């Protein structure tokens, strides 16, 4: 599923990459930027977390004319008077205007690095509002955002995740270069698909998806040995086939005939019927009921 998301086929979505301090999601974010640039898309990056040089590091230089970097790293709050982009300009009208300046015809991809910085200065309701309006408006093709989930309370993280069409949570993997991605994708019809994949990112920012992780919880249930209690006993509890057959053939003591069963099951009101069935050893002679008396 990670490779499908990297191909960026769904339009009008909001992809959220959630990371924590144990594993940074910025490498995955750069892979997404790289994939978008290779697809000849115009990419706008709102840089709040890291500087322009650090973000452009690793990206090929010939794609830079399609990459527009709005630097909010140096001066996010506008303390000096000439800041290229401040946090307070994060509103849908301002951003749409910004995007239309550079690519008036094609809708662009907007990358926000990172949403955590925006949420620090602007109220979550305003941020959610802006993201929703950008999603609905036609100026943006997709929004890709990075969110540090350990910086915010569960409620804020949950509220932002509700808006996202796909959420990728990255965690460190078991081996060195690998990382674990938990992907949740919500389709238009409301169907939710989830997946877990191990991936690693190479130097040229291509993502290789490795096999699915083996969940230790699953292992416990499947490899549990079925202990056979009939083994290792001093007496025999098993049945051979012939013995099993004989067991099936045995007539059970309270087996009644079909008529008796139906009569008992569907007994009418006030019926006191006596049903007599002669047993094998019974000597039933209609003529003489006291035949066995020796008189």
């Amino acid at each position: 599923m990670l490779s499908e998301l990297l191909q960026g086929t769904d339009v009008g979505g909001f992809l959220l990459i959630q990371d924590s301090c144990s594993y940074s999601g910025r490498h995955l974010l750069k892979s997404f930027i790289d994939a978008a640039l290779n697809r000849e898309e115009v990419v706008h990056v709102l840089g709040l977390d890291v500087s322009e040089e650090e973000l452009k590091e690793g990206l090929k230089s010939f794609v830079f004319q399609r990459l527009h970097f709005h630097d909010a790293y140096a001066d996010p709050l506008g303390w000096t008077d000439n800041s290229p982009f401040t946090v307070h300009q994060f509103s849908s009208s301002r951003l749409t205007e910004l995007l239309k300046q550079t690519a008036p015809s094609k809708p662009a991809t907007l990358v926000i690095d990172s949403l955590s910085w925006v949420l620090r200065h602007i109220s979550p309701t305003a941020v959610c509002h802006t993201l929703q309006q950008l999603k609905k408006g036609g100026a943006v093709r997709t929004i890709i955002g990075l969110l540090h989930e350990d910086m915010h309370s569960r409620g804020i993280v949950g509220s932002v995740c509700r808006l996202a069409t796909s959420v990728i949570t990255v965690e460190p993997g078991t081996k060195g270069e690998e990382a674990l991605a938990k992907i949740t994708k919500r389709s238009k019809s409301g169907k939710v698909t989830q997946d877990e994949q191990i991936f690693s990112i190479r130097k040229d920012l291509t993502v290789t998806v490795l096999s699915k992780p083996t969940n230790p919880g699953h292992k416990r249930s499947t490899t549990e040995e079925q202990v056979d209690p009939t083994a290792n006993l001093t007496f025999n509890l098993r049945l051979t086939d012939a013995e099993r057959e004989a067991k099936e053939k045995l007539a059970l003591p309270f087996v009644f005939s079909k008529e008796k069963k139906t009569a008992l099951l569907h007994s009418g009101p006030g019926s006191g019927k006596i049903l007599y069935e002669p047993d094998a050893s019974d000597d039933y002679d209609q003529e003489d009921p006291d035949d066995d008396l020796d008189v």
Partner: protein
Amino acid sequence: MAAPVKSMDKPPAEFSPLNFTSFQKKSRTKSLSIPGTRPSVQNGQLLVSSGVTSLDYLLGGGLAVGTVLLIEEDRYDSFSRMIFKYFLAEGVVCRHELFVAAAQDDPDDILQELPAPILDDVAIHRPGEQPRMSCEPQDTLDAMKIAWRYQNLPKVQSALASSSRFGHYYDVSKTMEPEIRQAAKWHRFYHPEHPPLSSGTHSPKLESYSALLKSLRDVIQREGFDLTAPLPKSRNILRVGLHSLGSALWGDDLCCYNNPKNVHALTSFLYGLRALLRTSLSVAVVTVPSHLIQDRALMGSITRLCDNAIALESFKGSERETNPLYKDYHGLLHVRQVPRLNCLASHLPDHKDLAFKLKRKQFTIERLHLPPDLSETVSRVSKGELAGAATAAAACSSATSSAKHLDF
């Protein structure tokens, strides 16, 4: 109103005091006869169907007119949205009027996604039907060799349904035809279309909620749903659907902070909503993303302010997904509150462990019961886990599960 309403087919073996009876009080009908409604057998309230027949049974026959149903959303808002759409689709089929309010999706889009009704109604699901006095008992008798006396006793009746034609069934895989949908009259409130008039007011009410309440009041008064105004010739029910109240898109920071600034915004809105509904012929369904609300006391007061409250907990993404106990179901359903309308005691559902399953033609709510524990190799640890999972789903543990673990 002499229309015979068939009560639920309860087997004769079971006896419970809160049984549905087929007894119909012959009273001079002062109650209104509106299509798609019926009076409750317990207290004479006018009921409408919620769209899901199992949910109707759970709530005592249906939603009473003038009440609010609160649905606490599941994590990805898939099943609560489904119930929301069922409610609106039922309104379209019964020819009620609709009022849809949402902040995330356009109400037009929500209405486009309504499920198609199954109008010939052939498949009325009767799961608890016993094999009656049949003439050919051969196959049934051979089914049980040793325990044949128990042949005719009912199996565990797990699905909850009442057999009246009050509710309809819907096919989830198809959307409702445009002709049926356009025949319905409906009103909309889409939050981004109503920008805040003044910003920075420090009132306990929120701009968005006040605008919503005002819009609803205007619709009720204009279209003649108000009970205080003189009655027009034909009356109808207004079905109000409010999607995701309390989420950040309504401008409410209830879900974001532990100590939200607008603590009383949603609660005062619900208070006003209930007052508005009590004096009009309307029913409301409100969904709230309760999994984001950190303050449990606030969630409790939101529940108290609504009449009926249910919570959906879907298994997707949680560790319960792999639990073999839950493999047939999509999630658990908790009934948080049932209303006491004009009576002292409310109708409580018989069973507290409920699980739901969304099938193509039906949304079933079933009683969760443990299957018989036949394997002897199940170790003690996992037995305890199963019992723990079952009790965690219910407020009181069921007697059957604890009896299994007695060892002599």
